């Protein structure tokens, strides 16, 4: 029993299935992200929670009360849109006060509350500015303040950072997280940017084709993906084909430990899903016999890590992405021969 529950939501748009029995539970004060590619239904789900769309089937329950049939303007939720949602004919202060004005809050308390929120989002000097005078990041801060002014039970954010510049996105993301935890408000956040989702959330719901594939903490979604889709959508991955052999995998004659292979019949074709940081390189001579030989093709300096592309001798010259600390750059020059092995933890094994 969560504070916000989505139960088996189904929604189609003109024959196209957007949501296929989506279920989700948010605890009070939690920030959950819905992460997925465009078209996976995350925005539809959010809009159903907000009341702008009606689900064909399923229920939305808040704090034990079924609000499925309640119109949007009585749901007591705050919503921040992707862009363009500030009222152009009102100043920042005017926008923030708007929800309070609708509730006939007396002017003095309105102004005070709005001022509080302006301070919360760090925009006091801009109180009298109109939306067209504010930058994208500032506009979204005002939008956030406006949504919070009415002290909603739930905060909904629909890709609020997607229309912003990269740097602004990172700063604002941290702000949103700070404000949300300060206020302890239950929040549902929709995004297609996995870095955002992982950085912000208490839990991440990875969605695909109208369903949640995994709902877990960021760390577990990243390190223990439940399905190949999740594994490949979140973070960078390599996929290596091989044959199951007890608790190991046979790749072109090389035998590498892979605990997950035990669940597959010996000899079955399987695929391993390995992240770049889960591979280790050693020189060809002193590598363990269960290591795949290959040649380094390119080096990309990514700041903290160096991403190498290694061409395996086997597997039709498959390319693998391997991350090493960037201070080891000299050891791994393009052209050098290496042996690739898995770092201790077992990779995910899926049928081929």
């Amino acid at each position, binding site marked *: 029993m969560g504070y916000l529950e989505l139960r088996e939501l189904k929604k189609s748009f003109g024959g196209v299935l957007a949501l296929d029995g989506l279920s989700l539970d948010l605890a009070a004060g939690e920030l959950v992200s819905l992460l997925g590619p465009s078209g996976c239904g995350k925005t539809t789900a959010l809009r159903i929670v907000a009341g702008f769309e009606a689900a064909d089937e399923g229920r939305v329950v808040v704090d034990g009360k079924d609000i499925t049939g309640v119109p949007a303007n009585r*749901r007591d939720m705050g919503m921040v849109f992707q*862009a363009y949602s500030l009222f152009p004919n009102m100043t920042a202060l005017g926008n923030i006060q708007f929800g309070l*004005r609708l509730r006939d809050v007396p002017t003095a308390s309105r102004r005070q509350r709005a001022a509080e929120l302006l301070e919360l989002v760090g925009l006091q000097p801009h109180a009298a500015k109109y939306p067209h005078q504010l930058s994208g990041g500032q506009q979204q801060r005002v939008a956030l303040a406006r949504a919070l002014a009415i002290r909603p039970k739930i905060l909904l954010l629909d890709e609020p950072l997607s229309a912003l510049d990269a740097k602004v996105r990172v700063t604002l993301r941290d702000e949103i997280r700070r404000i949300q935890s300060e206020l302890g408000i239950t929040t549902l956040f929709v995004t297609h940017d996995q870095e955002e989702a992982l950085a912000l959330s208490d839990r991440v719901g990875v969605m695909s084709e109208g369903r949640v594939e995994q709902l877990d903490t960021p760390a577990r979604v990243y390190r223990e993906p439940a399905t190949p889709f999740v594994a490949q959508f979140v973070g960078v991955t390599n996929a290596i084909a091989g044959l199951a052999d007890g608790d190991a995998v046979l790749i072109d004659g090389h035998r590498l430990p892979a605990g997950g292979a035990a669940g597959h019949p010996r000899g079955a074709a399987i695929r391993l899903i390995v992240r770049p940081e889960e591979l280790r390189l050693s020189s060809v001579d002193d590598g363990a016999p269960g290591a795949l030989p290959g040649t380094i093709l390119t080096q990309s300096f990514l700041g903290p890590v160096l991403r190498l592309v290694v061409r395996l001798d086997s597997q039709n010259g498959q390319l693998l992405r391997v991350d090493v600390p960037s201070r080891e750059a000299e050891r791994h020059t393009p052209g050098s021969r290496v042996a690739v092995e898995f770092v201790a933890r077992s990779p995910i094994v899926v049928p081929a």
Partner: protein
Amino acid sequence: MSSGTGRRRFSRLVPYLAVTPFLVYVTVFLLYPTLIVVAGAFTDDRNRPTVTTLRILTESVYLRAFARSIELSAVTAAVGAVLGALLAWAVWSGARDGPLRRSVTAAAGVLAQFGGVTLAFAFIATIGLSGLVTVFMRDHLGVDLFTGGVWLFDMPGLMLVYTYFQIPLMVLVFLPALDGLRPQWREAVESLGGSGWEYWRHVAGPVLLPAFLGAVLLLFANAFSAYATAAALVSQGSPIVPLKIRGFLTSEVILGQQNLGKALGFGMVVVVAVVMTLYALLQRRAARWLR
């Protein structure tokens, strides 16, 4: 490729040369005639500069013509704007590329821009002396539309027929403004607890106001400048300014008042110019908000 300074200077002039035919053309067929009218307003019969011609305009017969022109334009602009906005809203609520919107826009384009003489005849066929509606009302409802005189060919008739093309013009002008309303605004109002009415009152209304007022001005200028419809309907007398100008062009010109037509024209240009300037200022304000 030689690059002597002479050649470079020439090649910099080429673009200007390319635009010259346009400027010459426009000068001959637009700017010079305007100049003639403006200059003529300040000239007397012997081509000497004077304000006497303009002063004649303040005689009651001409003032009354201006008053009636302004009244006609203001009334049809106000009525046309309100009704037109209503119709625009009804059309806008539907599909953006749908057949309803397309046909209404095409019909509006025809009635607003093409009207003139054809509209006059449309109304003669409808409420003229033997028009469909006149006959219907007489035979079936026992009502004679013209007990007070045949008003179709005078000011009341002009007001009705003008409204018939002012409403479509308003639809054409106001639809883009309605398109500028972002759906997020309405949803934001709802998420903050507001109703549809509150959305229109606090957000959409104020945002559309400059556009609406600008449209009223546009409609005013349009009615004020209109000639064809009035010319086709009114054959006796010249109640409004454009028809007075017609009088000066088609009938005998009284000695001493040759330039009066130009003075009237100048007066019209001044009125329209003032209205259009206000309109331009309003449009700049509207553009700021709807960026």
